[in-house]
């Protein structure tokens, strides 16, 4: 999702809420921060908190609860995307909310934890949270820049799922050309050796390049190398074979485009492989953290 003007209201809202939360936190710690002699309602907990674990205070619990609620809401985006026909608001709003509310969790989590890592359990939880947030931010950055880069780098895109079939078609075309060349060689119409040169090029360069699943190491995989190689090939074969060379060049060009598109596609969506499972783990661990914390709170109240 591109971050543009349309995100401004979200940015302002999140900043406002974060500032309010920070003010509440500060006021809870130091009542003097509140202007005009105002004070927080008593149900928001003792001032200053009696417990060293700030998360256990009512205000801390409020921050934690809201953050956990946002985690759950953020996870619900996956469900929303699957249930497209449910009248649950537009998916664009959901995505924006996912993005900005999860950013809001950063101050909430910090305020909930009282800027402490706590024990090993909470430290692990914060680490997991950091992974989720970092992967999410990385995804946002990729989605902001990659579509434009992809548009400019790829002259023509194909349907991603069709790439294996299109590659197979290219290979089939090349194999057909190899058969034609072999037939020309068998008929002895070698002339100045053009069919032989083409056969060698096909066997050593073109066919391996089109066959390999990952052809990054092939010389034809590099645009500049490929241009040079085809230029030399055109010079070395007779004019009647040159249309075939042009066709070969086109196939290799198409293959390069598809490889590039595949790479882009993997970058665009690959981060989800980390983001989604870690988010799921975060929800589970946070759920357990909440249950354990509340259980402890009930058994040992302030």
């Amino acid at each position, binding site marked *: *999702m*591109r971050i543009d*003007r349309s995100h401004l209201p979200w940015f302002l809202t999140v900043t406002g809420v974060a500032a309010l939360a920070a003010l509440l936190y500060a006021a809870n710690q130091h009542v003097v921060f509140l202007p005009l002699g105002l004070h927080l309602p008593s149900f928001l907990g003792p001032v200053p908190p009696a417990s060293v674990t700030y998360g256990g205070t009512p205000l801390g619990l409020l921050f934690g609860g809201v953050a956990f609620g946002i985690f759950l809401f953020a996870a619900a985006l996956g469900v929303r995307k699957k249930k497209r026909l449910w009248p649950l608001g537009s998916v664009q709003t*959901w995505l924006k909310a996912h993005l900005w509310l999860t950013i809001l969790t950063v101050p909430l989590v910090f305020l909930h934890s009282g800027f402490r890592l706590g024990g090993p359990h909470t430290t692990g939880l914060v680490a997991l949270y950091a992974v989720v947030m970092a992967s999410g931010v990385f995804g946002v950055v990729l*989605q902001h820049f990659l579509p434009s880069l992809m548009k400019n780098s790829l002259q023509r895109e194909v349907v991603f799922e069709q790439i294996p079939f299109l590659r197979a078609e290219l290979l089939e075309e090349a194999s057909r050309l190899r058969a034609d060349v072999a037939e020309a060689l068998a008929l002895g119409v070698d002339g100045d050796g053009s069919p032989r040169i083409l056969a060698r090029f096909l066997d050593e360069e073109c066919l391996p390049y089109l066959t390999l699943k990952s052809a990054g190491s092939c010389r034809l995989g590099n645009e500049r190398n490929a241009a040079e190689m085809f230029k030399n090939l055109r010079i070395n074969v007779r004019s009647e074979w040159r249309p075939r060379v042009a066709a070969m060049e086109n196939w290799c060009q198409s293959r390069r485009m598809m490889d590039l598109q595949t790479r882009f596609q993997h970058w665009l969506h690959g981060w989800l492989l980390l983001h989604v499972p870690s988010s799921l783990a975060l929800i589970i661990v946070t759920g357990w953290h909440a249950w354990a914390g509340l259980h402890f709170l009930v058994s040992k109240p302030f």
Partner: protein
Amino acid sequence: MLPTTDFPATLAREDEDEGLFSRDINGQLVRLDAPVERDYGRNITLQIDGQSVTVPMAEPSQDANGNIILDLEGRTTPRYTTIYDAATKLYVKQPGDEVKIPIPVLCHQAHMKPVAVCRLCVVQIYGQKRGKRAAERKLLPACQHQVKEGMEVFTMQDAGPDGERVRKSVKTLTELLAVDHLKPAPRAELDKELAPFNELGRLLSRCGADPSRLKSEVFSPLQPEAIAHRQRVDTSSPVFVTDHSACVLCDRCVRACNEVKGNNIIGRTGKGAQASIGFDLDEPMGESGCVQCGECMISCPTSAITFNPVASVKPVPRQGTVEKISAEELLKDPLFAGVPPKFLLWQEGLVVRRKVKAGSLLVHQGDPGNTAFILRSGRYQTTVYKSVAPDKKGFFSAWMANSSKEVVFEVEVTPADVIVGEMSCLSGSPRSADLKVLEDGEVWEIRRNVLDRLMRLPSQRQKFESAYRERSLNLALQSLSIFEGIPKEEYTRLIDYMRPRISFLKINPGQVLFNQGDSADCLYIVRLGYTRIGIRRYEQESRVVSRGPGGLIGEIGMLGLDAGDAYRSAEEVERSLVEVLNQDGVDLAKVLPTGVRSASCSALGQLEVARLSREDFLPMLRAFPTLRRNLIVRSLSFLKGDNNSDPILDNYVGQGLYEGRSILALNMDLCIRCDECTKGCVEQHGTHSHGVPVTRLLRDGMRLGNFMVATSCRSCVEAHCMVGCPVDSIHRGKHLQIVIEDHCIGCGLCANNCPYGSIFMVPNENAPVKAVSTQPGQTLRLAQPKAVACDLCDAEGEKDIPEPRCVSSCPHDAADRYTGEELLQLVLSGNSDPNRK
């Protein structure tokens, strides 16, 4: 093989020449020259059964829909007038008179090229032999034989010996055909309905033939195995049944398939007693490439190709009562005389009766127009408003929009006008007027394919076309932007001036209207379709624009302006023009130098233009100063325009985006290629239409600036896909989107017609599916295909504003629907802001 160089050149030449010759009545070789356009003006007078009739020597060739066939240079293709044409002129005075023609035909139909294979239309011809009246030795087919000056023709109606000779021949031929091929329909339940319309059966009673007298013992019967090929009944198609034993080999189905529809599936196969029609390489119909369009079945004069009732067309609910009209009732009506009965019997609900109440609105301007109305009784009023109120949200804004409608044109129509609503029905464009019921009455609502059939009948076509022409004229004139700002009184005078002077032209796709540098002899107004205007500079096309309905073409040349005038002021140009125009007693066409075309113009699709000649244009300039001023300002603004080549505009025209009403475009700066749009589409439509999930869009297509135009229906202004649907299952919905109804038979014509590949043919698993074993242990499932296209997720028209799922499913706001012009403006302005909506 003999090398071509060894073949004596002289022999080759003689052989070629011989092909151009035939023998005349005197036995002399005569050269068969192809007719030329000047033969249209040469009249031939001949006598048919003693009645004199004068016809042109040649007529322009027409296609199956009665449209004159033009070559790439816009020239007609002449064909000789035949005796049958002359007889048609003599006997057919009104629809339904076709039965009065005393020349029976079996293999010939008015919209087909004559082949003269059945020989039932034979006539006795008398001509001049060595200056004396002499009879042709043989009876000759009237459907194919050209008319000659002074020719005398005797048909089976003639009481004399010539008539007797013809009668005998026709009778014997009919008996010979009937004894072998007059069969009941293979499906017993249909036979009762179809039997009265078996043309061979009707011919028997017409000429008093008795096939029973040709007992099988008279001729030695053929061995069953020898004619087994001709005896089979092919039930492989879910839609049609082919009984080869009932086929008279008239080739009507062959021509219907190959010439009328261009499918090239049916041909002749076998020889002698085994000769029959065949599908592809003589495969069963259901396994051939047959698209099941039904043209062959409708053309078949016997029970050789009959139908399974498949299409039940539901009448669209509207005000008043609706009742389906039976084929039997329709065929009794003179208006429908000549429409193939099988066509009317095949599909129910093509014509419905509506009882309408005074005060109700039958048609609303701007609504999709998929049907036409035949007025049976009552009085009606058509009203054209200046502009159709755009869709607006909210009661107040909608009310404001309605209250601002300005009446441009109002006229009362009665049953004497026969038909209304045919313009939208034929062109697929929205309704151009309101139709209000003034007095209780009855209308017959007909669907487009019925209107197409009616238009194939020459007598009906003439009637409908003249109504169409008159109404088109009014609409073409009222839609012109150059009339803006003209006072009402001047506007009325202007319309009255132009009306009798304007003529209409239909232009085929790609045909050139004029070339840059040609002399400007007329002004064109686009009525329907789009044109491509290209300006060449230094041997390169430097600027491309398109003009759509209401667009004016050729005004720069008509005003005598050129690129050098671009920087003159409008006042200056007008002053110099007025000086010439105001000279008294001069021929303006001679005084004002003829301008040259500043651009080349060609038709992008089917184009209909109104044409005003220079001789009529110049006095109009003198008489209407506001119009003159508008034309000058407009021309100068075009000349001042950027003449540099713009690849975006080039692409815009090249991709046909100008005609898009709802183009799905993805902003490639926002799109993360997640395919949520496609998934949303599939989920929205579910399995209802095809029994399996089907997408209506492909996230693949050409680019325009930052946008990719996805392969999905664009709801084109000119719906190419709707042309010719044999069962009228494709039409416009409430939002002018394309909707395909469930009774689609999967002929694929719409998919072939769509220039943008936006209609997909998908096997319909809901329809009868059969399994064919290809190899032992393997089966191939065969399902009838069915067309599928984007209907903006509102096929039923339940929403006020369509909400396509492809757009709402996109989480990144990359997908949206635009008109062609909106998209172009967005691309040209470089705006990719998702808040543009």
